[in-house]
């Protein structure tokens, strides 16, 4: 037992020999968790298509058009200057630009000279949608004037006006009638929200906290392979042959030390989740401990197996980070698993990160307890048994 502790302590001293290790142990995981929690879409964002609007008129008419666009279910007006809009449009960074030119007021509307310009990227579907939304907004603002203009024309075709004043009076009377008709127009569309179940369980804070915890803990645990490769390269493993320590003692010391450090790291990140991100990690402490421990064991076991295949420390470091990042991405630690095609969702069940993430989300996102995380914990334990067996079986001092 003393030897095991001594080996684990030695590994901790080697690992934290440089203060830079703290960057990877706690600082970067916290930075990533924090930024990703704020940077990933939560589902509460405005889903409408952005429509760049340049309001050069700044009149009540142009404001009414913008207000109507705000009410659209399809587009979201974003005001900017003509120069910025032009530049973004030329760079194809925006798909649609609506220009409301100066002089757009009630006089120009009555005179029939009011005109707006809609610039669209060619063959762009969003632009097709935006055009309809803009036409709807324009109609809401101008249909009473259109109706009054039309009424004047109808009247003129039957009996010409005696004077300009009579024509203007007829226009104003028509405008009043049209406004009254428009005001009393009933709502003709009703939106009913369906009962579709959202299959994507997602909360950016919970997903980010659990996902980054797994990413940053699994990479160093996979790095156990680098420890083996380093000791093998340095010849220190061979020296152990002449000491009264067997293979099991060495492996247990190395692995338990790394698992203990991983648990400390996990608890620090869980603490950050509870205190700063207000996540409910601590509701079921026993379940939390079980999922953290089995996750750490599975990752440590994978690192042990890797260590028996890899020859140099450089290789081990590179592969640990590569496997850590790829497993994290594919295991749903960076993006919700539900975004993957069904076949990939099934394939990635061979990864320990998938089960670790599911288990942690059961706790922190879905409010589950020990019973809920047991299946994931069992699978992770299964990974640990298989990989430790392979690792121990293949382990050589030289």
């Amino acid at each position, binding site marked *: 037992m003393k030897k095991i502790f001594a080996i684990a302590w030695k590994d901790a001293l080697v690992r934290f020999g440089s203060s830079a290790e703290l960057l990877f142990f706690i600082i970067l995981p916290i930075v*990533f968790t924090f930024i990703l929690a704020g940077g990933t879409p939560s589902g509460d964002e405005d889903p409408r298509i952005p429509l760049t609007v340049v309001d050069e008129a700044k009149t009540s008419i142009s404001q009414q058009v913008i207000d109507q666009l705000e009410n659209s279910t399809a587009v979201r007006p974003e005001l900017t200057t003509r120069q910025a809009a032009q530049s973004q449009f030329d760079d*194809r960074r925006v798909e649609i630009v609506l220009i409301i030119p100066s002089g757009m007021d009630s006089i120009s509307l009555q005179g029939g000279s009011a005109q*707006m310009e809609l610039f669209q990227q060619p063959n762009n579907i969003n632009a097709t949608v935006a055009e309809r939304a803009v036409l709807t907004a324009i109609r809401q603002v101008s249909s009473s004037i259109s109706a009054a203009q*039309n009424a004047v024309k109808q009247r003129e075709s039957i009996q010409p006006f005696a004077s300009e004043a009579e024509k203007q009076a007829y226009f104003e009377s028509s405008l009043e009638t049209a406004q009254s008709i428009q005001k009393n127009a009933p709502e003709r569309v009703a939106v009913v929200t*369906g009962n579709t179940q959202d299959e994507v369980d997602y909360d950016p804070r919970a997903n980010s906290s659990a996902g980054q915890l797994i990413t940053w803990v699994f990479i160093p645990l996979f790095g156990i392979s680098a420890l083996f490769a380093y000791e093998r390269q340095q010849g220190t493993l061979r020296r152990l042959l002449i000491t009264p320590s067997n293979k099991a003692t060495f492996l247990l010391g190395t692995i338990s030390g790394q698992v203990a450090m991983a648990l400390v790291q996990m608890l620090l990140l869980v603490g950050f989740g509870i205190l700063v991100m207000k996540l409910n990690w601590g509701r079921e402490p026993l379940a939390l401990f079980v999922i953290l421990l089995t996750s750490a064991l599975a990752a440590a076991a994978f690192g042990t197996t890797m260590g028996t295949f890899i020859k140099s420390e450089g290789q081990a470091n590179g592969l640990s980070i590569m496997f850590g990042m790829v497993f994290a991405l594919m295991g749903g630690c960076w993006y919700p698993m539900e975004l993957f*095609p069904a076949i990939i969702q099934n394939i990635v069940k061979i990864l320990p990160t998938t089960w670790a993430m599911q288990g942690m989300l059961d706790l922190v996102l879905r409010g589950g307890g020990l019973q809920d995380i047991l299946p994931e914990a069992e699978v992770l334990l299964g990974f640990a048994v298989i990989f430790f067996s392979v690792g121990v079986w293949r382990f050589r001092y030289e």
Partner: protein
Amino acid sequence: MLKLFLIGIKDLKLIFRDRAALTFMLLAPFLLTIGMGFVTGRFSGNSNGLSDIPVVIVNLDREQLGNALADVFASEELADLMEPTVSSDPAAARRLIDEDKAAAAIIIPAGFTSSIIPPEGTTFSQSNVQAEPVKIEVYANPTRPTSAGVVKAIVDEFVSRVEEGRTIGMTSIVQLMQAGLLSPQNAESEARKLFENVQQTESTAIILKTNNEGAQAVQFDILAYMAPGMALLFLMYTVSHGGRSILAERSQGTLPRLLVSPTSTAQVLGGKVLGIFLTGVAQVGILILASSVFFGVKWGDTLGLVILILAAVFGATGWGMLVTALARTPAQIGSTGSALMLIFGILGGSFINLDQMPAYVRTLSKITPNAWGLDGFTTLALGGTLPNLMQPITALLIMGAVLFGIAILLFNRNGIMQK
């Protein structure tokens, strides 16, 4: 110059013989790009934004306006946007939405047309036209808010056209009747005439001039963001790894040997930097080429692409040299370089599109070659050419030059390149 070039080529060869380095430089970003392709739906054809929105039309009206609305969704103009199916059962249509089989159902109730256009034989009056409205129901799928919003907007546009036509027609008739130019007996036939094509009314007070000419249509490929995102992320590893070789050569004694040969310090340092630069160019070049060959990403302007890669690697190499100049041991460069790679990765948009990041992150991102590089690659993928890339290229060149200048000052101060 030849010596400088030889040193650079030697370092390039060394790194391309190191399988561990190659795994990290090429295989890791390639695998992560594939993973990103799955996440974003690129490989399952779901990444192209709005298209083929499944919508169920239930037309119980079966008259002029109901048919016209159904025709709108089946029109050639909306062929790419909508994928309408017709049903006669409102309950079945709602069930399809609840089961997430479509984005929305449009249920046009019986009597919709007659609620707007007075049936034949009806005496015209303002009150009977404004009777209790018969409403079109848009049964929306809450898990597809954008698509459902678009469906609603199309229905709104149709209804606004009908409503404008109704307002125009009614205003004319009411005014003519008030002026004594139309008798109540004739009002019904006149109203019917005005309402005949009510759904085709065009607004006259404000004219909307559309402009969509002059450029080729471009569909943005999400992998054109993800692939360079990963390449730039791992480029930071490459440049710091290269910087590590300068200190490693010093500690292994090969650097002093080089310096006692008739080779100047500037040539040795220049050669080492050239080696790092060439390695980075090869790495990003291979990954970008792989994105074209394996995933069919179209990069457009080749000259722009090459210059952008050179500028991005130049900017990143500047960071690599600064890290090298600040470090005392190769191990320090390794850990600082890895940290910088990850920090720049998240700040620069390699993991998540910067547009989704908070404003302070977008501001901070300007110090990373990742953000400027991705800006350029996105412009290229959107059909931009070299002139459109001037801003990111200039920023990357300035970044590289400034960082090189600082690194050289630090090298001189710390005596790293002394015999």
